[in-house]
């Protein structure tokens, strides 16, 4: 395997951006990542993005998105209808073939114009589940109930996660929900989707993120402390909620084992959209109290759909590049109730 590193990362998020369309939202993020990445656009080997048409409510969201990059002269370019963490995986594969040495990866989405919770029901089996129109929060609440029952934990444990996220997010410039909040404060609010409260549910967020990847010496040339990808793996589980054990994340565990993620870490950024998901994922990843989990506040603080997974990789890389962490684990997810999961191990050093 070639050594490949994250050499720059940029992201943006706001609760509602009524001014910019998706393309305009991507432009500054891509510009920032390219500038910091130090590789001129004309020398980029590959470009790959992740987005979801149904967020925009039209076909081909990625087509206009590409205008943010300016595909002239024509680019080697691809797109996944998945969180942009999987676009990063595709770019990592392209670099592994030896065809290219660098890549720009970006993801974007605006959740505020539509009804995100309803839209995500369109991910379910169209014949047997979608007619019931379960919202993503309904499905998450089912998982949370199953998890609390099986683990013996209570909604106080969920509140601890939610409160810690908001406190951590005070230092995150893109957080759309943060504050000096205690678990008691969270518990004082009403349960909206039993056993979940608003603070356990991710905030509606518009945003984008971009990462530049580079291989070997190119990465060392453009970045003083590259965040090397030491392992990146993903696995999917059965779709039906009744066909899998919702109280565990088997595919996260499989991906973590394959990626070599179980050897400890200074920091972990988890694509946990709901409080209980963080607990399930931490167990699957074997994270103990010594690991700083979601120091950015995680998706409970800012959840720009389709880039929130990529942001986890970027947040870990940023800490490694800044010298704040030596080794980190990033996680991304897709589908209802953690159906599909990616684990990426990043390290500093040479």
């Amino acid at each position, binding site marked *: 395997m070639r050594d490949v590193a994250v050499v720059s990362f940029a992201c943006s998020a706001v609760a509602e951006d009524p001014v910019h369309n998706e393309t305009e939202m991507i432009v500054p993020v891509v510009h920032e990542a390219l500038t910091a990445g130090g590789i001129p656009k004309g020398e980029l080997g590959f470009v790959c993005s992740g987005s979801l048409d149904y967020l925009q409510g039209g076909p081909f969201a990625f087509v206009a998105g590409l205008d943010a990059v300016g595909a002239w002269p024509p680019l080697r370019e691809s797109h996944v209808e998945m969180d942009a963490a999987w676009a990063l995986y595709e770019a990592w594969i392209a670099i592994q073939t030896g065809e290219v040495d660098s890549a720009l990866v970006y993801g974007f989405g605006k959740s505020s114009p539509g009804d995100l919770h309803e839209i995500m029901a369109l991910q379910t089996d*169209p014949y047997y589940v979608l007619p019931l129109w379960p919202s993503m929060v309904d499905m998450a609440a089912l998982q949370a109930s199953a998890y609390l029952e099986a683990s013996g934990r209570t909604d106080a444990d969920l509140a601890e996660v939610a409160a810690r996220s908001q406190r951590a997010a005070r230092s995150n410039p893109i957080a759309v929900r943060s504050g000096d909040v205690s678990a008691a404060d969270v518990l004082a609010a009403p349960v909206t989707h039993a056993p979940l409260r608003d603070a356990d549910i991710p905030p509606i967020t518009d945003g984008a993120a971009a990462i530049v990847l580079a291989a070997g010496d190119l990465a060392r040339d453009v970045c003083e402390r590259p965040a090397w990808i030491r392992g990146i793996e993903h696995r*999917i589980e059965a779709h039906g909620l009744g066909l899998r054990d919702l109280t565990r994340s088997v595919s996260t565990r499989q991906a973590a084992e394959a990626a070599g993620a179980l050897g400890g870490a200074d920091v972990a950024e988890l694509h946990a959209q709901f409080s209980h998901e963080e607990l399930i994922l931490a167990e699957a990843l074997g994270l103990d109290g010594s690991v700083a989990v979601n120091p950015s506040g995680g998706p409970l603080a800012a959840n720009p759909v389709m880039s929130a997974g990529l942001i986890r990789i970027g947040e870990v890389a940023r800490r490694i590049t800044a010298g704040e962490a030596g080794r980190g684990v990033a996680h991304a997810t897709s*589908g209802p109730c953690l159906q599909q999961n990616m684990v990426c191990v990043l390290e500093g050093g040479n």
Partner: protein
Amino acid sequence: MAGQRVAVVGVGQTAHRSARKDVSIAGLVREAAQEALDDAGLTYADIDAVVIGKAPDMFEGIAMPELYLADALGAVGKPMMRVHTAGSVGGSTAIVAAKLVAAGVHERVLTVAFEKQSESNATWGLSVPMPFAAPLVAGAGGFFAPLIRAYIHRSGAPRHIGHLVAVKDRLAALRNPKAHLHMADITLQMVEESFLLWDPLRYLDTCPSSDGAMAMVLGSEKVADAAPNPPAWVHGMAMRSEPTMFARRDQVNPQAGKDCAADLYRQAGITDPRRDFDCAEVYVPFSWYEPMWLENLGFCAEGEGWKLTEAGATAPDGDIPWNPSGGVLSSNPIGASGMVRFGEAAQQVRGMAGDFQVDLRTGKALGHAYGGGSQFFSMWVVGSERPE
């Protein structure tokens, strides 16, 4: 081509029909996947990863359908990816899958592309009114017709050239039992007299709306050497994209297509595509795109494509058959159509194309797909012989 050697060791596809009411979406993709696995002598348990592609989710009304299809495609416990690059997606999906092998990450990858157009209406799916955007409400044909008129104006091509392609590809499809359209009685006059949709495109100059799926099993050299049927070796693969709206863009003869072909031919050692390929499976959804892509892909000089078509050079018995399977004009499950091109090219060089097998001389074939407003391209070259 960069990376480890990659070969197509299994190909499968559904029969393409206007409405496959006998199967669900899961049943449709599984039909193609099972045939590809049988061809490769493998089962789902042997597969390391699954890469699926399709055109916009609105064509079926399901967001990210790979999630729902994970079980049907045997992906549980494995990596699964979903590619979407507009109409080029069938080709792009195959390329992403091939790169997983070329990168040395996996040995056996199942790749599937599908569209079940009967679940929805593609023309309306393509024409959703968006804020601050001029409403098109014209579907793909309305978008491409002005580009075709520009081509006719530039090249001086006679007006019947498109109709010749419409007849040629439908007659070719008579030898392909899986093709959607089987029009044994089609004539030039019938095409000329079919109703005008978007000048100069008449009804029979356009592709049908199809339900269908295509699947391939891609394997490493080790897998290819153990495969029960002859492999098709991947000699090159390339993708290119250019901006949708751009003053310097030539939408009739796009630079991205030329660059993509040049990159591809360099990898595969192609210097004269008309002579170096035994056949080409090229994404021709509207008849006039045959002469246009003949030029864009370097099979002739600019302005000369229509002359090849008129002379019969691209017919199944011509010197460079284009779309001997009947092409997109005879079957168009949109998201799968590009992979059908890639897979049919593979079947030709494997000598497994059945009644529409071409004579193998160089043992190389081109698979091509394009999408959007001709700004997205994906292509590969497959060959009977192991690449150097």
